[in-house]
């Protein structure tokens, strides 16, 4: 009976104590897909705050799409070509895209929700689900793994449109897990084989009871659902999707695969988790732990879809040597040259570019860490990583020319090792144009979302919600 009172988490801790390698159960084998063998498998989206110092990110004079350097002094993209730190250069698995716009119709602080939805923000939320949820849940690509998708965050567990990447049907925000231990337990907690016969029997009984409870809840939802209108039914449909996630965790175990469960994140490295409540000094440790858990989960086939909402390092004596308030004193002070200001004239202030570039480099260093981990686990080549921010020029809170980076493996779907520059948003004479103006010719990220969906074998030609169909329709040209 003692075991029965143990929570799943406690049970896991007991089982994992001291163990670095535990046999893992694959709940279900991968299902074949209609789309052919080259379709992509894993998708990760990473958000980084504070936009970009374009001066240390964009193509420089004399560089071309295929001939460019990211190792020059100050360049924020350095981690992608830094074999000394990350074991190898990932430059050939990098695709930088300049000139992508997030047409959010909202302030940059509210528009992170546009990154994966391609939707305007209205009523404090986007209008449709995000690409990760569209692929994993609506198109079922994540249903063959124990966890369909996972949303992780650093420091802030809010679900406002500016704090979230993943959204369910109708743009309902999905909460983020900010505790790496909880992330670990969610991803690996139910996949551990109980070691002794007693706990095996206990686990069997718990599984039976758990399934009967879920059957009961499903039945009750089935009674309630027909009484509702279509929009209200969405709430219960999402509830049912969530129940299926729990059911997958209850699925009986199968033979261990070759994968090994990583050790549980060391919680002593982040005694506080929350922003504004003492968590800031641990944000880098939390980020690293999240990345390591996520890489293992992808490599083990626990999930194929993840999002990570990163944070800044706003605290005194941060390791970057930046002002304690990154937001006010790094992002807000950025004073761009024309490349960072939609080609508006002006020299800008070079001394404001370097602190922001330094912060950007920190953000990209975490992406490189993820690539390194995935590579070591043999999972980089079938994992596409989409990295973006909610702003381009952060002091303007501009959602135009947002820093867009694709990296990882694309199975030949996209041509990597390049630095693309899309056309300007406005003609030369009217650099102040904005979405809604006749002179606006910007490229929305919706096209990129369409391209990625197609690369995952999903036959769509539009994605997102915009005022004009031209912004939601068609792929991003030049990717292939």
């Amino acid at each position, binding site marked *: 009976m003692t075991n029965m009172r143990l929570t799943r988490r406690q049970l896991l801790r007991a089982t994992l104590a001291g163990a670095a390698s535990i046999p893992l159960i694959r709940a279900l084998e991968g299902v074949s897909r209609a789309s052919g063998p080259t379709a992509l498998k894993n998708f990760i989206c990473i958000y980084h705050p504070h936009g970009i110092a374009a001066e240390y990110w964009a193509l420089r004079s004399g560089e071309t799409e295929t001939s460019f350097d990211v190792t020059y002094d100050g360049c924020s993209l350095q981690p992608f070509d830094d074999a000394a730190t990350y074991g190898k250069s990932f430059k050939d698995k990098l695709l930088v895209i300049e000139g992508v716009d997030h047409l959010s119709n909202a302030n940059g602080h509210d528009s992170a929700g546009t990154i994966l939805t391609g939707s305007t923000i209205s*009523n404090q939320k986007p209008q449709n689900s995000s690409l990760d949820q569209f692929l994993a849940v609506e198109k079922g690509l994540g249903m063959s793994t124990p966890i369909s998708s996972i949303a992780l965050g650093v420091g802030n567990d809010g679900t406002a449109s500016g704090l979230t990447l993943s959204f369910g049907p*109708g743009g309902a925000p999905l909460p*983020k897990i900010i505790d790496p231990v909880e992330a670990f337990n969610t991803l690996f907690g139910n996949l551990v084989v109980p070691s002794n016969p007693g706990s095996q029997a206990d686990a069997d009984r718990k599984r039976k009871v758990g399934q009967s409870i879920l059957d*009961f809840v499903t039945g009750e939802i089935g009674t309630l659902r027909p009484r509702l209108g279509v929009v209200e039914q969405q709430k219960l449909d*999402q509830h049912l999707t969530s129940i299926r996630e729990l059911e997958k965790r209850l699925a009986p175990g199968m033979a261990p695969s070759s994968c090994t469960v990583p050790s549980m994140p060391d919680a002593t490295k982040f005694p506080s988790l929350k922003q504004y409540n003492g968590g800031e000094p641990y944000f880098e440790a939390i980020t690293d732990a999240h990345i390591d858990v996520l890489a293992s989960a992808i490599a083990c086939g626990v999930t194929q879809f993840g999002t990570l909402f990163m944070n800044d390092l706003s605290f005194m004596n941060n390791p970057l040597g930046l002002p304690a*308030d990154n937001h006010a004193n790094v992002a807000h002070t950025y004073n761009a040259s024309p490349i960072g200001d939609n080609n508006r004239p002006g020299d800008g202030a070079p001394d404001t570019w370097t602190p922001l570039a330094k912060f950007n480099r920190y953000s990209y260093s975490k992406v490189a860490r993820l690539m390194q981990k995935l590579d070591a686990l043999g999972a980089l080549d079938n994992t596409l990583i989409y990295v973006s921010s909610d702003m381009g020029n952060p*002091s303007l*809170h501009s959602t135009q020319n947002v820093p867009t980076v694709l990296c990882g493996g694309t199975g030949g779907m996209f041509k990597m090792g390049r630095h693309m520059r899309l056309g300007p948003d406005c003609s030369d004479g009217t650099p102040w144009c904005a979405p*809604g103006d006749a002179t606006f010719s910007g490229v929305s990220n919706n096209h990129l979302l369409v391209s990625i969906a197609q690369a995952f074998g999903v036959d769509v030609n539009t994605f997102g919600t915009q005022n004009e169909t031209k912004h939601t329709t068609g792929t991003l040209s030049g990717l292939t």
Partner: protein
Amino acid sequence: MGTTLFRLTAALSLSALALSACEGNIGGSDHSASLGPGGNGFQGGSLGGGPGGGSSLSGGGASAGTSSGTGTAGTMTDAGVGGTLVDPNAASPLLPARIRRLTDAEFDTSVKSLLGFDSTFGASFTPDTRQDGFSRNDAQRVDPVFISQLQDAAQQLATTARGNVNNLAPCSDQGGSEACAKTFLTTFAARAYRRPATDAEVTALLTVYRVGADGATYADGIQATIQAVLESPGFLYVTELGDTPLQAKTTLNQYELASALAYLVTGSPPDDTLLAAAKAGDLSDPAKRQSQLDRLLALQPASTQVVRLVEEWLGIDAITQTAKDSNTYPGFAALRDSMKKEADDFTAEVMWKNGGSVGDLLSANWTIADDSLARMYLNLDQNGAIPRNGNHVDLSSVIRRGILDQGAFLSIYAHATETSPVLRGVAVLRRVACFNIPSPQSLNITVVPVVADPSKTTRDRFAQHVSDKVCASCHTNIDSIGFTFEDLDGMGQERPRQMENGALVHTENGMTVDSSTTVQTGLSFDGNYADSSALDQALGASPDVLDCFARKLFRNAATRSDPTVAGAETAFLTTAFALAPTAQGKVHDLLSAFVASDAFVNRRASE
């Protein structure tokens, strides 16, 4: 209705006037989209963006716009392709039929009511999704993260409840029996679902009992059913569906009315008295609903609900998520909890215990604060005597009036290292006055940040706002309000004080702070103000602020704030505006009007 239209028109024409100065800088579709919300009091940002939101609201904007003589103000925008469909019944005075998931706080109170012991699981769940600042809303979902947390909580709660199985589910049969389980489940499910359980529901729970007790004990079976109930839709969702298939007008059943009333007033499920009233069919009678409201409002949990309403309205609950640069404001961290407690206690005293109005909340010359916060307010050193009158701290000797001059509001609407006239001005306009301020982005305006400059006061640095014609259209309004708070720094302390020409002044960077302004919004609190304490008193006496509070109370009470319920909101405001002047701005009178209304009892079929 005349009153309603007049007030809506006043708000809209202002926006129109302010924005007309920006002509040429503002995209056409954004313009009308942001005006529509303004006319209806929906805030920019919350509704201003999407094509659906724009077009649904410009109906209201159009009529008001026409009557104010600015014909373009309410222009309908085309619904964007792929945009959210606007409910064609948005103009209906009835709210749509629906289900609403309990908030995290309601989960805990509901568990306590059901199981008899405290739960803190809800507080540790993923935070409530907010709408218009309110946690009680239509947006809570059972998503994969929530359901996982819920399952863990239900498991542990059921384990704890099992320890009390002999009281919870007593059974005289040796070792327990299915008959006992059935008896237990019939009453337990009714309590959990806040209505009698159907035979089918009890039968379904008995199935869970059998699996749980199979090869185990009666207590194991009961434990499994308790977990099942805590995870069930009957427990998690408050229904507003009535007993018949949905029609154009569907009447809620008695138990739904009881739940609506109980969660509204006490944040908890209905108590025995209310359930008995439901069983007797009393709740169809508006007078009986009102007397239940009076009874519930006198209970202690109602105090928590009133505080939640006010704090979420003003955004003051965010104080627990606010931090300051410890070099600039070394005292803030130690005072943050005091500020939160002050906001709680002061609000409860004014709005609940005293039954006061929002005018009192905004202009009181006293507060309820602990010694360290009182000393900060009164500019006293460690040993200074605090003038207390009962539990009140007398603030009449200093420049501080009402909740907007308290530490929580002033700290939240400021930056980590400095004040923010913009955040404070926007908060007052949007939240306190329901005056729409569109975001610069939605107006296609490029924002140039105000750079730090120790040789100037904050106000001087922001002078650019009004020298730039584009910015001035909005910032004349925003900054004129924000500047009145400039005597108070980024955590609400008075800036350094000195005498100048026989008068007390405050200084910043060694320069005299000017907190005097002329507010010219077109709203009823326009005028010349020496500082925020003068403005606070004008706000407290302003009919526009009373109206705004009524609108916000409706959104919290109806737990809806989206454009699809604009008609119901307008209908409520028509009632609220007709209340006697002494009743306006009071929680009791506004709730009483809502509870007695047709909209409280009836729903329309939703899409």
